[in-house]
């Protein structure tokens, strides 16, 4: 009996080994590396070295054709070669790393992955999953944007046009803010950032997303109950005379959204509508995020002289915006409210802003010129010209400027204290 079992086990091991080698595996390798430098050119502060990076992102993928499954592993690595030594946060080293199994009707994914919802390319109100780097020097830095989370994802394809997706994120991370604590000049308080790599006190996020890519319209519906990556703050004492430490606190949030995209003549139009319900719906807490309705409208059109243009208009309405509790020191309360409302991008009850993107290629697309412009209905117009030159099929040189007209905002808690800057970047990609 024991001998038969051993034979059975041996045969099974053999078949497992040879069976696995029979899988047609397609291996894929990608590699991107760059070196870049940022210099500060804020007129009021003079020139300064802001940062430099020597960056590597290797990626390995394996497609198992016989089992319709895929494995992806990628990492981020960077070090600062110029100036004070600095390195990537070890928790940011793992990039995407997941396993997917596909069947006729379902896809199942387990691992760390980026998830994207909605049709808006920028300021999309559906982009609730994942934390991100908030103190970016370039707003379009594609190497330090959103950070993937561990997740379980199930996709169901009832028809060729419809997709129903359920995503569960057990634990997520806080947004990455500026490295140092911030001193608030009028109240002498200090804002302290979270050092936690993961928000273990705020587990479990769920997203349910329906997509339909039809003949005339694309449609998306979204419901999310999730850990908000941007913190609220605990302000127990509002006072101009005493100083306190103000600490972050993370809460769950609901997002209910609907979006569509369609062709209008020779342009494409998309709109994302979202209702965000925060913990502080009444607006009583001055340092907490308000609930809001956000509408993002995006138009993609071709201009004369072959200039590609995209226009994004964002409108937000914040419920109970000025209903916060002022306690006994209304001056201090108003100062703190201004700081935290700005931090939460809710300076007024209604906000409206516009971002334009213009793009043209020269030298048979070897040279690409781009201009991003932001108009926030204030004198502080944002402009960000970009140039990219492809030296070869695998290497290119990029440069750009971030410039905001006028002086930097007089907000202690603003996220980019260096404001205007330029960068130059040399990229190799295989």
């Amino acid at each position, binding site marked *: 009996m024991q001998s038969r079992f051993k034979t059975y086990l041996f045969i099974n091991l053999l078949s497992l080994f040879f069976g696995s080698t029979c899988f047609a595996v397609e291996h894929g390798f*990608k590699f*991107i590396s760059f070196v870049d430098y940022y210099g500060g050119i804020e007129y009021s502060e003079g020139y300064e070295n802001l940062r430099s990076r020597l960056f590597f992102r290797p990626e390995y993928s394996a497609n198992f054709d016989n089992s319709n499954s895929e494995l992806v592993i990628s990492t981020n690595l960077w070090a600062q070669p110029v100036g004070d030594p600095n390195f990537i946060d070890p928790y940011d080293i793992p990039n995407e790393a997941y396993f997917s199994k*596909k069947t006729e009707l379902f896809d199942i994914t387990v691992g760390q992955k*980026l*998830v*994207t919802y909605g*049709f808006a*390319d920028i300021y999309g109100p559906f982009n609730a999953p994942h934390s991100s780097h908030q103190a970016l020097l370039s707003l379009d830095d*594609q190497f330090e944007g959103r950070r993937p989370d561990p997740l379980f994802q199930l996709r169901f*394809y009832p028809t*060729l*046009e419809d*997709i129903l997706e359920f995503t569960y994120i057990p634990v997520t991370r806080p947004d990455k803010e500026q490295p140092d604590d911030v001193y608030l000049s009028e109240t002498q308080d200090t804002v302290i950032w979270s050092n936690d790599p993961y928000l273990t006190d705020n587990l479990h996020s769920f997203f349910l997303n329906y*997509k339909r*890519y039809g*003949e005339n319209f*694309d449609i998306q519906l979204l419901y999310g109950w999730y850990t908000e990556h941007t913190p609220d703050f605990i302000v127990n004492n509002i006072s101009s005379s005493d100083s306190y430490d103000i600490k972050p606190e993370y809460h769950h949030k609901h997002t209910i959204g609907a979006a569509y*995209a*369609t*062709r209008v*003549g*020779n*342009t*494409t139009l*998309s709109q994302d509508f979202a209702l965000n319900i925060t913990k502080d719906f009444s607006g009583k807490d001055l340092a907490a995020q308000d609930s809001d309705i956000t509408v993002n409208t995006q138009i*993609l*059109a*071709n201009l004369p002289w*072959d*200039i*590609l243009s*995209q226009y994004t208009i964002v409108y937000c309405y914040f419920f109970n915006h000025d209903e916060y509790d002022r306690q006994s020191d209304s001056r201090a309360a108003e100062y703190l409210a201004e700081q935290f409302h700005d931090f939460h991008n809710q300076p007024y009850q209604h906000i409206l802003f516009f971002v334009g*993107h213009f*793009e*043209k*290629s020269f030298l*048979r*697309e*070897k040279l690409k010129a781009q201009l991003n412009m932001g108009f926030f209905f204030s004198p502080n117009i944002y402009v960000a010209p970009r140039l990219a030159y*492809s030296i*070869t*099929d*695998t290497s*290119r040189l990029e440069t750009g400027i971030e410039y905001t007209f006028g002086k930097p905002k007089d907000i202690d808690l603003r996220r980019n204290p260096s404001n205007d800057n330029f960068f130059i970047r040399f990229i190799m*990609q*295989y």
Partner: protein
Amino acid sequence: MKKILFALIFLALATAPLSAGKTVEEILAEFDKTISVPSLQGTFTVKLISKNGDTREIKARAYQKLVDNKQNNRLFIFDFPPRVRGTGLLVHSFLDGRDNNMWIYLPTVKRVKRIALESSGGGYFMGSDFTYRDLIANDLNNMKFELLDEKTMNGIESYVIKCWGKNQTVIKDLGYSYMISYYKKENSVMYRREFFDSDSKLLKVYQVDNFHVSGRYHYPTKITMTNVQTEHKSIIEVTEISTKDIPERYFTTRYLTDK
């Protein structure tokens, strides 16, 4: 990366029949039959060669299926250069006057985006000698045709047909004052086309150097487009051609993102 990435191959797949023949209409109809392969897939390599010999390359996989006599689906997945690897373009073309539907998948932002080709940024496609407008099938109702000649070209007995836009709007939209196409007499297959600029000077020459023949179908597998004014050249080569049936699910946004 907002600009539409489109395959040069599209020209080979989508070039509208522009000829006439025995009568013009007969040549056009015959040419249409030779190129209307029900299902087709292949790997495309495009070499871009400048006057000074500087060479760049684009590689893509392409899939095409005629759904019925009103709809044609195409999928393109780019593999090279690395900055566009994984980018996909899905096109549902309608032959009954409805607007084409197009979606692009950009792996860097993991987003499927509906686009209109006319909002692609125009100009030359990915640095090649094909304009974005070259990649759109011409509505024959907007074109005029004339049989110019019957002659032997490089040993091939050919019909020579001129075509041009019906009005100034169409001509301006096309970007050419007129085109002259060469069709083989034996089977009405088009193998050469000359493009003339707004001053009626020869601008570009499209030449098919090789065909994949399967039954009545003749599919171009090596195409050279030469800009005679700048001496820039684009060479398309198609390999791993298959005419096996392609499942409908290939032409969905699911497949666009998965491949």
